[in-house]
Structures are given as structure tokens and as C-alpha cells.
């Protein structure tokens, strides 16, 4: 059996555990506990080692989905989990006090693996706090020479998380969707004949 992995990372409360649960074929395995530090003001439980989910493909392959702990004191886990990953999904949240600094920090932490593979950024909480726009996040990436998909997402919605991961895969190889199936056949497309975009 062949195993591959995608890493989900980001600060506390960005929705990593929820995002993995949204697309995993199994109920995610989490290592959550009640926080005793400042995290307790943000959420009732927090990941201390990792979250784990899996996508089963046709044939023997499995895609493992790993979520890293958000707290800085567990940052050593990020590097362990990211080793030999297909790509990195960073989840940021507009509800944090300094989300742009968060993004800068996490991009720096994963820069080596991002340069080898690909990056996709999902921003949660934009409906709750509009302080920063997607352009603000894109500019953080541009300052370090990265153009990556940056999408507004609701981590509870499978379609949002699935689109974000699809964009990650296309960033690695834009040709993967060609000759795959008749255009318009997927649920992410509109009906061609009707041109109904509404």
C-alpha cells in the first residue's frame, strides 16, 4: 500500500480539525485536550499532537491528511508532519488579532516544503470580521515571492475545502484535469448547455 500526505497547518482556531473532517473518508482522529494556556479563551479544546484523516483513492493509494497543532510550543510537530508531503494547506482566520503576521510566520516555517511542492491558503472567519481582505493575504505572499491560491472558506463546507485542495493539486500540475472527463461533468462545474450561471 502506497501512502502520501497533505499537511494542514495554521494558528489556533483557524479550522484545521474541521477542514480535515470535511473531506476525510473516516471520522478524523484527533489529539485534542482542554487548553490551560491563552488558547482557553479561544476554544474549549485544542490539538496537541496532530489531527488525522484519510482519503481513499481507487486502488491501493491513500492520502493521509495531517493537521498540525496551532500552538507555538508544539511547532516541532509541524516539521515532522510536513516531511515529504505532497503540499501544504495553510488555514488562517480573520478572527485572530494579527492574521497577516500569522500567515507570514507559517509561510516562513514551511518555506522549504512550499518551495518543493505547493501552497494553498484558506481564510476562515471573513463573515465574522472583515478587517482584512483576501488581497491583504495575497500581498503577504507576494512580498515573499509567492503567488498561491487564496480562497475564502468555511471549513465546515466540504465543497470549500475540496476546492482549496484541488487548487493545491493544480498548482503542482495544471495538466492533471485535462482529458479526465467530459467538461462540465463534475459537480464543481455549471451546466454547459444552459449557460446558467445564476
Amino acid at each position: 500500500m502506497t501512502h502520501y500526505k497533505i499537511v494542514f497547518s495554521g494558528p489556533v482556531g483557524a479550522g484545521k480539525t474541521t477542514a480535515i473532517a470535511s473531506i476525510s473518508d473516516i471520522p478524523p482522529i484527533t489529539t485534542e485536550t482542554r487548553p490551560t494556556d491563552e488558547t482557553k479563551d479561544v476554544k474549549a479544546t485544542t490539538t496537541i499532537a496532530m489531527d488525522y484523516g484519510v482519503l481513499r483513492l481507487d486502488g491501493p493509494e491513500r492520502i493521509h491528511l495531517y493537521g498540525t497543532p496551532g500552538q507555538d510550543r508544539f511547532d516541532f510537530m509541524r516539521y515532522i508532519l510536513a516531511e515529504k508531503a505532497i503540499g501544504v494547506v495553510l488555514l488562517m482566520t480573520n478572527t485572530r488579532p494579527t492574521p497577516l503576521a500569522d500567515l507570514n510566520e507559517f509561510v516562513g516555517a514551511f518555506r522549504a516544503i512550499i518551495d518543493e511542492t505547493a501552497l494553498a491558503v484558506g481564510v476562515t472567519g471573513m463573515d465574522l470580521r472583515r478587517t482584512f481582505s483576501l488581497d491583504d493575504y495575497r500581498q503577504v505572499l507576494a512580498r515573499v515571492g509567492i503567488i498561491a491560491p487564496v480562497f475564502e472558506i468555511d471549513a465546515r463546507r466540504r465543497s470549500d475545502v475540496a476546492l482549496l485542495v484541488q487548487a493545491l493539486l493544480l498548482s503542482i500540475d495544471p495538466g492533471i484535469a485535462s482529458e479526465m472527463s467530459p467538461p462540465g461533468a463534475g459537480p464543481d462545474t455549471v451546466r454547459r448547455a444552459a449557460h446558467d450561471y445564476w
Partner: protein
Amino acid sequence: MDGRRVNRTELSTPPEDAGTSPPAPYQWPSAAASTPTPTPARGEAAIAVRRYDPARFLQGLVASAWRQAEERGQAVHIQGPWPMIAVYPNSSAAVVYGGEGGLRPYAGIEDLPLRATLAFSRAPQYAINHPDMVPLDVLLWKLALSASRGRLPLDMSLGTPCALREWPNFTRLVVTPGAMSVAALWVQRPSTLSQTIDLLHLPAEDVFVFYSAAAALDLVRPDLPSQPTPLRSSAPSSAPLSPPPAVAPTPRRHLLRKLFNKLRAG
């Protein structure tokens, strides 16, 4: 949120402060004044190209009103036979009174709005959680898709290299067939429309409709030199320009394709 339940009947007319400047008729471009169709690029004859003029659709009207309002630092109310549209450039938002679905019958019709007027407002009333609020990029994207319907804007040549400034926010936009593949390609390297069609094996109309929507949001940079080398390839830059090379597969293409298909299938 102002907490007030909105009476949509009341909202069918502009708020009182809408007429800071008197409503002015919008001058629609005539067919004779339209930009001429560009000279066909190499290989264009082999591709069926249907064209349209964005300025002669609701797309062009909203885009023009948006630009004017932005320059004035004001909001603008767009009136015509369709549901009234209020555009708030500073908030990157619009309100389509009665819901954006009300624009559907008008968005794909050329030269429909014979009596369109724009009314600019210095002090727009704007509730951030208005039930009929829609992000401007989402509205303009849909209007462009409906106007294009697989056609190419008049002033765009198949031989002009395209690059994207950034990825569109696909989780909140209508994702047309092949749109994400084209976005990924154009972010990585400039490609002409002809090359894009060949490299990604997409129907021309899928590429054209995506180009139309991305251009409407000013996401396309048409000013870059083309580098038609295979993706992930070590081919020298002096490789011949035509025919365009195939997209060189990454070592994991088979795996990535299966994963993509699974996520796509839901």
C-alpha cells in the same frame, strides 16, 4: 447589522439621498463604434471564435458605473428595466434589490437597456448585512459569464499571452469547466489562448468564458511575453513556438489526477 427588517417593496426605489447628482442617461456604445475584431493570430483560423462586446451588455454598464463611482468616491444606483443595482466601490459590494437572480433575464441580452440611468450618491445608505448584498466581484463575474457564454471579447487576440495577477476566489465564484486548470496555468506562466486550449485540451469556449470573467475583474495581465516551454520541463527556452508543447506530466500526475477526481466528484 441594523437589525431592521427590510421591506423589499420600499427598496424598489432609490433611497432619498441617491440623487446627490441628477440621474444621467448612460450612453451605450453603438455597434458602429465598437472595437474592430483583431487580426486573426496564427492558428486562429483553426479555432471557431465567436466574439462579443462586453460594453454592450449589463456587464459593461456595471463595470463602467463601478469605475465612475470609484473615481468620484461615491456610490451609484443603476436603473433600467432590470432590478435596481446599487454599487458601493469603497465596500467592494453591490445591492441588487430583490436579489441578484433578478438580473438573470437581462445579463445575456445585447443592447437591451435603452434607458439606463446612473444616479450618484455622496452619502449612500449601506447596511453591511443587507439581505440583497453581493460582493462586486461575484456580481461582475456572473455578468461576464452570462454576456460571454463562450465568446471572446472583441479586442482580445488568440495570440496575446495571458497571465493572472492572482487566483480568483473560486469558493465564492461560479466555477466554469476548466476554469481552475486555466487559472493554475496562467499563474505559473503566461500562455496565449491558443496555447491554453492546446496545452490543457479544453474546448475553446471554456477558455474564452474564463478569460472573459477574469478580464472583467482585471485579473488578467495581457502584457507579458509568452514562454511556451513545457511545464516542469527542462527544455531550453529556444524551443520552437509552434506547435505548443504538451504539458509535461509531473512524476505524480497519475496520483494527483485520482485525488483531484475524487475531490471533484464529492
